[in-house]
């Protein structure tokens, strides 16, 4: 089977000796919407840099739609559209020039490039700015310009490195819609983001990278199923006194409640419990609930626990190495 992306034993050590990637393996199927997550400095951008040939790898193999970047680099590049983390266009060039020239680098003839530039600038609501220099755009517009630029050669795989960083909620949601639509058309999308809600909402598969190693590589569904406990926040409609609420908490069995203030209760719910039990207990105590929400994003809770597990494992390893050395 040919994958959109196949990475094996990929390692990168920078000049100063910093080992950014320690031999990672990763596959992304064609048509997937894939999240590559990790804390700052985990190796996400280095991985993307190697795939797009902006970073020279130290070891390992990368194949894009079956083409090895060592032997068929130009062919491999033609499948990829990149939306980098930082703005990397000339601030002085008008939008139309940026887009048409970019298409030209991929061999797209000028009349077709102009047609596509119009299509994407209109879709991304930048058409009115087409003759303005890029520096005149707002941050959100610059992000959209980079998406338009990445699409000019109609790539089969789109790699987005933090595409919604610093973008307001409304615009972020419209960008999600746009990306979903592209994915529906068959474009494989690889996304890195710090907004875990974004990854949870958009992506079907996920890999988490930390310290240059893949610590999780699974489907979003399976990953979320690992979550043992979810915390809900209940807003109480009629204010009870804190003492009354505490009395309720003490008397309650099976479910763990915490009193936050006279209007708020927090409830930890594990997989064997359900919300009906909670509402039954609250009904008996005459506590009326105004609204309810998840305390944290589900993926966020898992992400934090996976990263913590990794760092404590590293700590233990280094401690035992120190003991061994003694």
């Amino acid at each position, binding site marked *: 089977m040919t994958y959109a992306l196949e990475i094996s034993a990929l390692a990168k050590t920078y000049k100063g000796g910093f080992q950014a990637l320690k031999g990672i393996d990763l596959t992304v199927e064609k048509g997937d919407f894939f999240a590559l997550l990790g804390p700052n400095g985990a190796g996400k951008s280095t991985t993307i840099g190697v795939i797009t040939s902006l970073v020279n790898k130290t070891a390992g193999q990368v194949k894009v739609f079956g083409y090895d970047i060592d032997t068929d680099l130009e062919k491999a590049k033609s499948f990829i559209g990149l939306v980098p983390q930082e703005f990397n266009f000339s601030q002085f060039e008008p939008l139309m020039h*940026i887009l048409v020239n970019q298409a030209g680098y991929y061999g797209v003839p000028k009349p077709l490039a102009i047609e596509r530039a119009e299509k994407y600038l209109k879709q991304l609501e930048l058409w009115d700015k087409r003759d303005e220099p890029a520096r005149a755009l707002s941050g959100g517009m610059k992000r959209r310009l980079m998406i338009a630029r990445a699409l000019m050669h109609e790539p089969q795989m789109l790699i987005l490195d933090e595409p919604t960083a610093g973008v307001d909620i409304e615009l972020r949601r419209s960008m999600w819609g746009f990306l979903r639509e592209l994915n529906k058309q068959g474009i494989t999308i690889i996304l890195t983001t710090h907004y875990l809600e974004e990854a949870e909402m958009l992506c079907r598969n996920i890999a988490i990278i930390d310290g240059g190693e893949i610590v999780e590589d699974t489907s979003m569904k399976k990953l979320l199923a690992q979550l043992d406990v979810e915390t809900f926040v209940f807003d109480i409609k009629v204010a009870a006194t804190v003492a009354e609420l505490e009395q309720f908490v003490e008397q309650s069995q099976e479910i763990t409640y915490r009193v936050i203030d006279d209007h708020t209760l927090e409830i930890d719910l594990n997989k064997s419990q359900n919300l009906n039990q909670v509402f039954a207990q609250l009904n008996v105590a005459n506590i009326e609930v105004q609204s309810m929400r998840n305390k944290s994003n589900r993926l966020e809770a898992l992400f934090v626990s996976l990263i913590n597990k990794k760092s404590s494992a590293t700590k233990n390893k280094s401690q035992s190495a120190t003991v061994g050395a003694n």
Partner: protein
Amino acid sequence: MNNSIALKSILTKEIQRFMRIWVQTLVPPAITISLYFVIFGSLIGSRIGEMGGFDYMSFIVPGLIMMSVITNSYSNVASSFFSAKWQRNVEEMLVAPVPNWVIVAGYVGGGMCRGILVGLIVTLVSLLFVDIQLHNIWVIIATVVLTSATFALGGLINAIFAGSFDDISIIPTFILTPLTYLGGVFYSISLLPDFWQGVSQANPIVYMVNAFRYGFLGISDVSLVTAFAVIIFFIVTLFTIAMTLISKGIGLRS
């Protein structure tokens, strides 16, 4: 992959860049050359008399045009490529399936276009001060094309290594300008003592200026064959260096 479209795109971008800032790129050489003509041609030149059998003004015209071509083809590529590195828009080309030779050819072509265009402007300005004669138009064209290619390649290599804007002004200030002024623009090297004539022969600009002057006036301190051999040697060497640097990703890929 159609490399000619990619090449045309880089070339178009380069030409659009220097045309967009024409006040900074095309006007200053015209002003500088006018000053040279007023000072060295009219004021001082009239006291110098003849040089190589021609009045001083006619003698220095080819050298002054060549000086503008050299400076502009070099600085165009040096500043444009470094600015593309600095703003990171060089990545637009690096992520695309553009062969390295197309990147080199595109930037060098852009530098040559500016060098040759400035050369034309300076020639037109010269006509206000002196009657220009043509001895061999093909030698003029060949010299200006090859010289602009040489220095555009030099500017590219400079920009690849440059880490700051200072780094793209060091070579023009400390190497290019002295070599140009000592390259026989203002004097015939046959006037120098033997030792300094020998030293001058190590200066590649001497060959370019003399070949160019031959095209206008039919006189040269060096043989035409040697001059073209030297220029072609420099082009081949600099092209090989530029290709190697870009292929290895020096200053471009981490």
